[in-house]
């Protein structure tokens, strides 16, 4: 049994992992860069080790230093979280060699799924539908043109080693094929050191739907249903929900089976996600597999009733899956809102800075996973995700109504953030109808950027409050001028949110 876990990550996911460890009686080891000495995961961990300068390449991506800490702290296992080293086959292998359990799949599964062309081939062999396109890397441009004619325009040219929207080109006209391939190749070469590219049919109105799977070391694989992740900005998810508003029970069942087949095809171990692209006719195609925990895993936890981090640890300990497929059910509806430190009005530009004030929502069906605190300086080196709001409701309508209530109670001051933008998504007619694709944000941008005006006299109340507070301060500074005004305020030593509890 695992007794001590090193969490090779930071931010909300590090804290979230440590919480489940605490509950299991497992000691936690945190690691931190220069910028993170006062970060929440350091404060929450039982032990904490400095691993290097602020840039991730010199700290959270420094495999040898992290393994050194694992040995020094006598950790049995390393949980990589998401991002950083979580999908790094080399790191998984190094852990194996060092005799420290990597909580996640072995290097084989990671590399099979990390290379897009290999993944496509593996999926085709396993009978999982993939987007029509080339099966291997493009060798000649002539051959490419032939393929494009077979599958029909538009198509996507994609880097095999790609990710995060890099090394991708959309081709709409035949005349652009050659130049697009060349551009994608050169971008892939400089970004990933590998210029292999392939061609896929472009799905016009895509839904991005993923299935959560769990696989033990004994060949048992189950799926925990889907997450609908089509609300994206800058190719990054911002809202996820489960169940998907568009799937039918029959398609859900089929896709779940395909997800299990996909995981089995690479001898998968641990928690993983099969991402599908789904068109308006509910044709679904394998897109990629994320061989790690997802940011949006809590909505599955809420609706299916499984603590995914605990299951990861049980699996890593060699235990058999303790859930059977037929026992699992989706109960109600859950929505996750990602709160980013960013400026929606300025192309979602990240907005680091010092958090001066937080008010957190509570009550039935509300969960907040975060890592910031008042006075915390959000570093410039890492992801701008600062909190996740996970809301459960009886059904989709109930979940949306509760999410709006929770977002209105939620306040973060000091840094620009996406709270207002998220609330606008919840009220956008296309979202309410459940009728949206990955183009949702572009298509609804006007509604999403709006700000609902304050009702009744509340704008005047804002003005009055600022005015009176200023007056009060003036009076303290020069009491003589202000003796005409009497008031009985006490001087409190601290600012507090009344919405705190």
């Amino acid at each position, binding site marked *: 049994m695992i007794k001590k876990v090193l969490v090779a990550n930071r931010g909300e996911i590090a804290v979230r992992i440590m919480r489940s460890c605490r509950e299991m009686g497992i000691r936690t080891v945190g690691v931190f860069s220069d910028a993170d000495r006062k970060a929440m995961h350091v404060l929450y961990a039982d032990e904490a080790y400095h691993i290097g300068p602020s840039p991730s390449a010199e700290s959270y991506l420094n495999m040898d230093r992290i393994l050194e800490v694992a040995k020094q702290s006598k950790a049995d296992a390393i949980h990589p979280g998401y991002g950083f080293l979580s999908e790094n086959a080399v790191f998984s292998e190094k852990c194996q060699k060092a005799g420290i359990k990597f909580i996640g799949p072995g290097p084989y599964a990671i590399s099979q799924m990390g290379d897009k062309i290999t993944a496509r081939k593996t999926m085709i062999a396993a009978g999982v539908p993939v987007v029509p396109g080339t099966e291997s890397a493009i060798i000649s441009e002539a051959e490419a043109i032939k393929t494009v004619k077979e599958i029909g325009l538009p198509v996507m040219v994609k880097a095999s080693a790609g990710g995060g929207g890099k090394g991708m080109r959309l081709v709409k006209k035949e005349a652009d094929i050659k130049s697009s391939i060349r551009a994608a190749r050169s971008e892939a070469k400089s970004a990933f050191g590998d210029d292999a590219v392939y061609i896929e049919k472009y799905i016009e109105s895509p839904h991005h739907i993923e299935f959560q799977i769990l696989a033990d070391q004994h060949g048992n694989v189950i799926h925990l249903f889907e997450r609908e992740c089509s609300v994206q900005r800058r190719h990054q998810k911002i809202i996820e929900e489960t169940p998907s508003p568009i799937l039918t029970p029959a398609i859900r069942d089929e896709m779940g089976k395909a997800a299990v087949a996909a995981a089995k095809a690479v001898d998968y171990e641990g928690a993983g996600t099969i991402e599908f692209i789904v068109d308006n006719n509910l044709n679904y195609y394998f897109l990629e597999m994320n061989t790690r925990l997802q940011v949006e895993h809590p909505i599955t936890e809420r609706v299916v009733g499984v603590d995914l981090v605990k299951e990861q640890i049980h699996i890593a300990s060699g235990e058999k899956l303790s859930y059977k497929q037929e026992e699992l059910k989706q109960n109600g509806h859950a929505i996750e809102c990602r709160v980013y430190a960013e400026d929606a009005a300025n192309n979602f530009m990240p907005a680091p800075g010092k958090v001066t*004030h937080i008010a957190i929502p509570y009550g039935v069906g509300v969960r907040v996973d975060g890592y910031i605190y008042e006075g915390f300086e959000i570093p*410039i080196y890492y992801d701008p995700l600062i909190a996740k709001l996970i809301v459960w409701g009886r059904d989709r309508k109930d979940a949306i109504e509760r999410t709006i209530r929770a977002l209105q109670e939620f306040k973060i001051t000091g840094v620009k953030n996406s709270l207002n933008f998220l609330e606008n998504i919840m009220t956008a007619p296309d979202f309410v109808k459940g009728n949206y694709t990955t183009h949702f944000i572009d298509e609804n941008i006007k509604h999403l950027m709006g700000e609902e005006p304050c009702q009744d006299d509340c704008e005047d109340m804002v003005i009055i409050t600022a005015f*009176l507070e200023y007056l009060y301060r003036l009076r303290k500074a020069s009491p003589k001028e202000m003796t005409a005004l009497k008031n009985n305020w006490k001087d*409190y030593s601290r600012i507090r949110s009344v919405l705190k509890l």
Partner: protein
Amino acid sequence: MSFEVKINNRTAHVELLQWEGSFVNIKVDGKEYKLDFEKVNQGIFSILHDNNSYNIELIPGDNVKKYTVNTYKNTYEAEIIDAEAKYRAARLKGVDEDAENTVVAPIPGKVVKIPVSIGDSVEAGQTLVIFSAMKMESEFKAKKDGVVKEIRVNEGDTVEAKKVMVVVE
């Protein structure tokens, strides 16, 4: 006692008539209010007006005249405009006009690339700095045609917010 208070794009004239205990009688743009105004805690206020309940959070800004104000649903930036602030605003007016000649780091971050050199002629829309913060790369472009006059940062530099990086003339 009266001042102007600016919130978002509105500038309101506020006049205090009476403030005793929690009772406040006040005029905003000529509309008179009689309020039960309580300070719940530092920065937290509760107002009852005709039995409507307003819970208002006031977070001090850069200076004593600026506040971020949260209501249940909205967030406002409020600023007290007194004689001094008016004078300052008038003086500053000229200065900002040069803004379109400079590329300023909007947030702290890292200079990834500067694809121009001093003396280069650039066109409006041409990329002057590639900038990275929190895993996102942004391109900062020239706002008008001109010649690169100054480059005040180096590739690879970590810079603070508001740092002027490139000046075009």
